[in-house]
């Protein structure tokens, strides 16, 4: 069964709402939650995630807060939670401390968009010891030789970046995407999750056969920007349902 993965910025609009949104997403049939750890200088992100990160930081949104959000969610739910954030706040928190507490909080995986396998010897061994998946990104620009390094390094799944660019909802995905996905499908048996730019189910109709899951971020955060309270809950459900149908989950 193909996985539906949703990214939200932890602490946007506030920590309590984040916990609430996670349970709404789970009820709506989302399989994996990616919780964004905000950073002041998100160089791989477009305006929507930049905005959400900035707002989250205004209300703290520290690594410690994020881990406590995970702990709260864990009391009620077993949904896999993957933390996603830039290296500096995690490094500053202390890598060992971070992995110890992440393990104890019930974090399932970690994505650091400014870490490449060649620079992550220590992180790799700490993640392995903590039993936390370390998920690497693979981009359309990744050369074949390095793609092998990524298949061998990643645990959990390969985060396949659909576009040469930053995060953010796009109307169309690049035309060469099917060929690219077909090629990497041939190269690895690791699960492939496609992210960046996905805003509508029809974007994945022709390519879903090559992948094991899709990741939706900015398009969902736009809804969180627009609505509050009960309306937010119903809008999230309305947004998620067609994606589930597209992935054959309904």
């Amino acid at each position, binding site marked *: 069964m193909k996985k539906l993965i949703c990214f939200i910025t932890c602490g946007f609009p506030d920590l309590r709402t984040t916990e609430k949104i996670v349970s709404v997403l789970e009820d709506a049939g989302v399989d994996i939650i990616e919780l964004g750890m905000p950073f002041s*200088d998100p160089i791989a992100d477009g305006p929507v995630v930049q905005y959400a990160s900035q707002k989250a930081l205004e209300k703290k949104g520290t*690594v410690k807060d994020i881990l406590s959000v995970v702990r709260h969610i864990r009391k009620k739910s077993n949904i896999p939670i993957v933390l996603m954030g830039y290296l500096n706040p995690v490094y*500053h928190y202390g890598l060992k401390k971070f992995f110890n507490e992440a393990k104890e909080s019930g974090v399932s995986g970690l994505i650091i968009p400014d*870490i490449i396998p060649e620079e992550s010897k220590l992180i790799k061994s700490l993640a392995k010891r903590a039993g936390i998946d370390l998920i690497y990104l693979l981009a359309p620009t*990744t050369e074949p030789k390095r793609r092998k390094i990524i298949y061998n390094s990643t645990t959990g799944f390969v985060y396949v970046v659909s576009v040469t660019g930053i995060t953010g909802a796009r109307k169309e995905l690049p035309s060469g995407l099917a060929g690219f996905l077909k090629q990497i499908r041939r190269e690895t048996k690791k699960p492939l999750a496609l992210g960046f730019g996905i805003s509508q189910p029809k974007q994945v109709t022709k390519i879903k056969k090559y992948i094991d899951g899709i990741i939706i971020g900015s398009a969902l955060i736009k809804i969180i920007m627009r609505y509050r309270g009960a309306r937010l809950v119903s809008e999230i459900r309305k947004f998620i349902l067609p994606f589930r149908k597209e992935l054959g989950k309904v």
Partner: protein
Amino acid sequence: MRYFGQFGGQFIPETLVYAVNELEREFNVAWKDKKFRKHLDYYLRQYAGRPTPLYYAENLSKYLNISKIYLKREDLAHTGSHKINNTIGQLLLAKRLNKKRVIAETGAGQHGVATATAAALFGLKCDVYMGAVDVERQQQNVSRMELLGARVIPVKSGSQTLKDAINEALRDWVTNVHDTYYVLGSVVGPHPYPTMVRNFQSVIGLETKRQILKLENCLPDYLIACVGGGSNSIGLFHPFYNNRTVKFIGVEAGGLGLASGKHSASLAEGTVGILHGTKSYVLQNKDGQICETHSVAPGLDYPGVGPEHSFYKDSGRAEYVAVTDREAIGAFHMLSESEGILPALESAHAIAYLKKIAHKLKKPDIIVVCLSGRGDKDLEIVRKFR
């Protein structure tokens, strides 16, 4: 060299890896290629006006009661600062890589102007990212870039200064990496930039060494330069690295004073972190978020610093100090009135430190200060400074 001690590295999104690898390969080949070096040397001489003079500032020396102050006159290089040394080198590389477009970040506008200049010379399209605050306070350089055919894109995120301009330039590069070359302006960013930019700027120190040996028949006792990202200082220091009697002093922007928290002194006050693809000293809060910085000199207004400087700091090879906005403005006036030279406010930080060490010096000391740029761009700031 990928690392300087524990500092440096490549902390970048996967999308950029092929571009930095391609750049590293091309730079390594070009740097060893006699034809490339001859080409570079030709443009540095015939176009940029090198070698720049090493000028004995006799009036200033007397005024401060220091035996001998020499000024390395990078302000006399074409476009008015040392930045041209780097941009000519990088534009030659962009041509070798068949890129059609270059992008750059700029703080004071000096690197933006130098990039726009080299792009005009070599016929490439040029877009420059500049914080909206800096666009406002360095209007003259904005006009220069536009007249040179570049497009200046104001950046309105974050503190709207150099850091945010780099963020935006990196986002552009991630998006247009196939046909776009990123001309980074300082010894920061992911490998190979810190090494490559240092090599292009080393012409400052190499010339200084030849000139001082000819003038004084000995090496200087001190080299002093301002440090924002740290390109003019590393360019001056690096060729003297193995001359252990030559002391290096890097002068950071102390802003309103280190205790005020409103400054850009990453080496003096920062802690080790990762910013813009490199591991180095960074000004960050207790949660690892990057701080907003302040300096009267837009080119120093940056919360990070080149990894090689962090290595020099920890190994003790260089000493890093800070002077305040007010002291830098004072030095601007002092040099203008004593020598008839208007220094860039960035370079004025290095001049200001002379006043602070004057009493510590032995009489025959020889000091070389890098006058990294000219001050014409800063007249408004100086006029308005209270």
